[in-house]
């Protein structure tokens, strides 16, 4: 029977309560370790078409009569459109339609950042549309600009109210601490820069709007577009079979979708609206800059007794203030914690979620601070972390936590310290550093899947989720194949179309596999049960003695062994249909992911060049469905994190608020030449409390600890404390000079003392 419950849902560290109908999920978890298909490496089912250039992305869609769009953006960081005349643009050759402020969601009269969209033109070609922008006659009224987050906070200009958190008595515990370390850490604005820019093609067919879009959430786009247009949700069909990367920036539709939808409505033609790479770098969202003022107090034996932090998110004109304070509250056992987090509203481009938003930044600050504490205590940083191991999350038990096993896996890499340091010479200093990671990633309800077995014994899994490049399509096929007892190549996954499958969650917050996976397993179990019922009647056996293994319907005594396609072949055109739903998360428990990374670096103390030479990662995300894809997620996260740490930085003119790094030669992402040796290990222990899979998500955890681990390795190599990301050569040389001065001071003091 369907049961109605109230449950909690987490996305990217934000919680909400929702009503949920639970269809009981009586499946037992599979035992730990590799099964027949799940837990074994599987190549991606859609890799050949992607590699051969046959996969059709939104960028590749060409519909008959399709128009192309260019968007007029504010040249000012804060301004109002006083007057606008679109007529001269509409008069130009090839121009078929134009929109001004207020005519599509996202086109506003008030521009809150340089690059904010205010008007749009659709024309036969993109070149015509772009040329027409210049003809739009617009008069701006410039408004006051606030670019400095501290300034915004002083004026109480927030994106949301400041968030305060306290447990125990921070002040007193700090006063009683034997050792206190304080530090201010800063992280820069970094950009997603997915290879496929944000874009959508909108096409009205009758009263239904077809939206082809590069998105992480087809259902979210469906609902947002329906709401904006005031039409029922089922009149919007959203399609995204292949998409070229998102990393959090494509969780919602964005102005380009609303513009295309409105222009398509007015022109009665399909309309494509795509951001250029330069627009992508100015207006498509970013990981905001942070300032973190952190304090830790400890006893001389290494017990952390007080943790405090003031976190500022320089959010921008829109976006949300992500949980930079989370790691400080959650990573270590500490009775006395006090944090405050501000979200500064400033005239800069919007924040959008970016792979573990808040925790990437907050972990950099916290894990550097912890290492500085270890240095002051003269304690092994790994030992210090073990000593302050948390056994509950703010009083709540963990559904599972294997961080200690991660530390054990990391030990052999950590033990390379002496050998690595010994490689140092006068110029190149070598060192090893580590950092831990905590994050969400348990997923949650609702998500659904359907299954279909045809009389040739082939299986389709149908679910309106999306595979944004993480390999979830293949993971879903593995889960269905395992449950059903068929080889992987018999299963195909149909996804990416809101009109052709049931609701599935967004691909963000490391939630796709833990959310949709259990629904797929339940749907596979549903058809398996039906097949066994059919076999029992056909062969006059009891259901409980029948199973399906390797595509064969078999009986326990071995007398029955019939290929599945032979059994279901009886049915000719009939099909066996199943359905499954994601159940709730365990109540009263914290579902979290954990990990640790050990990094080896080399620092050229003359030029400030930093090279990451080796990264060893050990993560605990419950059961691993596909070890091959999981390794790629870890490598990809680490490589992106190395970019954040050493080279990526969006630069802005602090006078005008204009973005200076708008191209991929100015905004420097890692290339193949920047990649270190990466070793990747998993605890691979199912979370016994979480769903029938015991799996958590892996998209985000690997990017979380890397920056701090690099900074800590730099300290190990050189004694310098870097406090800012990215660690440019300037920052590295500054930190080296500061370390030199400190060393000289200590020497003077010790001479004086003598």
């Amino acid at each position, binding site marked *: 029977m369907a049961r109605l419950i109230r449950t909690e849902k987490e996305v990217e560290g934000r919680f909400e309560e929702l009503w949920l109908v639970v269809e009981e999920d009586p499946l037992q978890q599979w035992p730990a370790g590799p099964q027949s298909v799940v837990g074994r490496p599987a*190549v*991606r089912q*859609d*890799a*050949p078409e*992607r*590699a*051969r*250039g*046959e*996969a*059709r*992305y939104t*960028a*590749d869609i*060409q519909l008959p009569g399709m128009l192309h769009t260019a968007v007029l953006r504010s040249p000012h960081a804060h301004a109002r459109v006083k007057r606008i005349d679109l007529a001269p643009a509409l008069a130009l050759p090839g121009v078929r339609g134009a929109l001004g402020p207020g005519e599509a969601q996202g086109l506003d009269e008030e521009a809150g950042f340089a690059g904010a969209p205010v008007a749009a033109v659709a024309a036969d070609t993109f070149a015509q549309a772009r040329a027409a922008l210049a003809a739009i006659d617009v008069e701006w009224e410039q408004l006051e600009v606030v670019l400095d987050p501290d300034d915004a906070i002083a004026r109480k200009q927030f994106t949301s109210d400041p968030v305060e958190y306290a447990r125990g008595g921070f002040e007193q515990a700090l006063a009683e601490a034997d050792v206190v370390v304080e530090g201010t850490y800063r992280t820069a604005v970094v950009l*997603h*820069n*997915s*290879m*496929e*820019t944000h874009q959508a093609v909108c096409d009205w067919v009758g009263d239904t709007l077809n939206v082809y879009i590069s998105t992480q959430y087809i259902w979210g786009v469906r609902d947002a577009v329906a709401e904006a247009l005031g039409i029922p949700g089922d009149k919007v069909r959203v399609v995204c079979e*292949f*998409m*070229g*990367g998102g*990393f959090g920036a494509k969780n919602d539709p964005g102005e380009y979708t609303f513009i295309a939808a409105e222009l398509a409505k007015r022109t009665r033609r399909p309309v494509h609206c795509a951001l*250029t*790479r330069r627009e992508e770098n100015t207006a498509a969202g970013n990981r905001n800059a942070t300032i973190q003022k952190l304090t830790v107090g400890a006893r001389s034996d290494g017990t952390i007794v007080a943790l405090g932090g003031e976190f500022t998110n320089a959010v921008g004109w829109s976006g949300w203030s992500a949980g930079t304070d989370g790691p400080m509250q959650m990573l270590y056992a500490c009775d006395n914690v006090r944090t405050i987090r501000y979200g500064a509203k400033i005239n800069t481009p919007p924040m959008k979620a970016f792979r573990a938003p808040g925790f990437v930044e907050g972990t950099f600050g916290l894990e550097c601070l912890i290492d500085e504490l270890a240095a002051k205590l003269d304690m092994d940083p790994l030992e210090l972390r073990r000593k302050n191991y948390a056994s509950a999350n703010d009083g709540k038990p963990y559904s599972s936590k294997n961080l200690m096993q991660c530390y054990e896996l990391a030990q052999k890499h950590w033990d390379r310290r002496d050998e690595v340091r010994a490689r140092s010479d006068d110029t190149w200093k070598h060192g090893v550093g580590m950092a831990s990671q905590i994050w969400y990633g348990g997923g949650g309800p609702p998500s659904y899947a359907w299954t279909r077995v045809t009389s040739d014994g082939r299986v389709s899994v149908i679910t309106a989720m999306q595979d*944004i*490049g*993480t*390999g979830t399509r293949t993971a879903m096929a593995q889960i269905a194949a395992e449950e059903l007892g068929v080889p992987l190549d018999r299963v195909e996954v149909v996804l990416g179309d809101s009109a052709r499958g049931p609701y599935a969650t967004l691909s963000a917050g490391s939630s796709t596999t833990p959310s949709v996976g259990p629904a797929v397993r339940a749907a596979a179990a549903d058809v398996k049960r039906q097949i066994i019922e059919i076999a029992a009647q056909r062969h006059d056996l009891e259901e409980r003695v029948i199973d399906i293994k390797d595509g064969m319907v078999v009986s326990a005594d071995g007398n029955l062994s019939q290929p599945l396609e032979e059994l279901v072949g009886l049915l000719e055109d009939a099909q066996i249909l199943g359905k499954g739903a994601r159940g709730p998360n365990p109540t009263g428990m914290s579902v979290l992911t954990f990990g640790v990374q050990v990094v080896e670096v080399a620092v050229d103390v003359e030029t400030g060049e930093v090279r990451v030479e080796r990264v060893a990662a050990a993560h605990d995300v419950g059961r691993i469905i596909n070890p*091959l*894809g999981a*390794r*790629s997620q870890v*490598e*990809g*996260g*680490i*490589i*992106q994190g190395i970019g954040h740490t050493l080279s990526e930085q969006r630069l802005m003119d602090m006078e005008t608020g204009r973005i200076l790094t708008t*191209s*991929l*030669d100015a905004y420097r*992402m*890692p*290339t*193949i*030449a920047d*990649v270190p040796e*990466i070793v990747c290990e998993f605890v691979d222990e199912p979370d016994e409390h979480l769903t029938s899979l015991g799996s958590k998500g892996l998209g985000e955890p690997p990017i979380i600890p890397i920056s701090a681990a690099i900074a800590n390795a730099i300290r190990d190599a050189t004694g310098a404390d870097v406090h800012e990301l990215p660690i440019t050569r300037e920052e590295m040389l500054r930190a080296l000079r500061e370390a030199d001065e400190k060393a000289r001071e200590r020497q003077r003091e010790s001479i004086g003392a003598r």
Partner: protein
Amino acid sequence: MSDVLLTVNGQSYSAYAPVGMSLAQLLREELGFTGTKIACNEGHCGACTVQIDGVPVLSCITLAHNVTGEITTIEGLRDHPLIEAFVEADAVQCGFCTPGQVVSAAALVAATPDPTVDQIRHQMAGNICRCGTYPRIEEAIQKWRG
């Protein structure tokens, strides 16, 4: 003179191309070779890589009217063993950069069948992959002959 004559993947094409049209745009929009991706359109990422007479070039900053040699796009390399090698090594995440990677890699292994890691890194450094498949690409190129 707005018509261009091109040889693409061994076949000849004639197409209308306004002066100033890039080869990438011509291939994608006029000839339907959408396997060639455009990610930056200004020569900074490698997604649009095609070969002209076996040499990798960035088609987004190549003028269609200037091309004289024989063009090979990803569509002409569909049966190249590198495809299988990329799939087996899990070198394809979102896949948007992948056709460009394969075209660059195919030029590399044609000239240097057993490239060293340094040679791979040198040749492939112009092809950005935001998903970070680089270690897998390196492995795929090392094992391209199976």
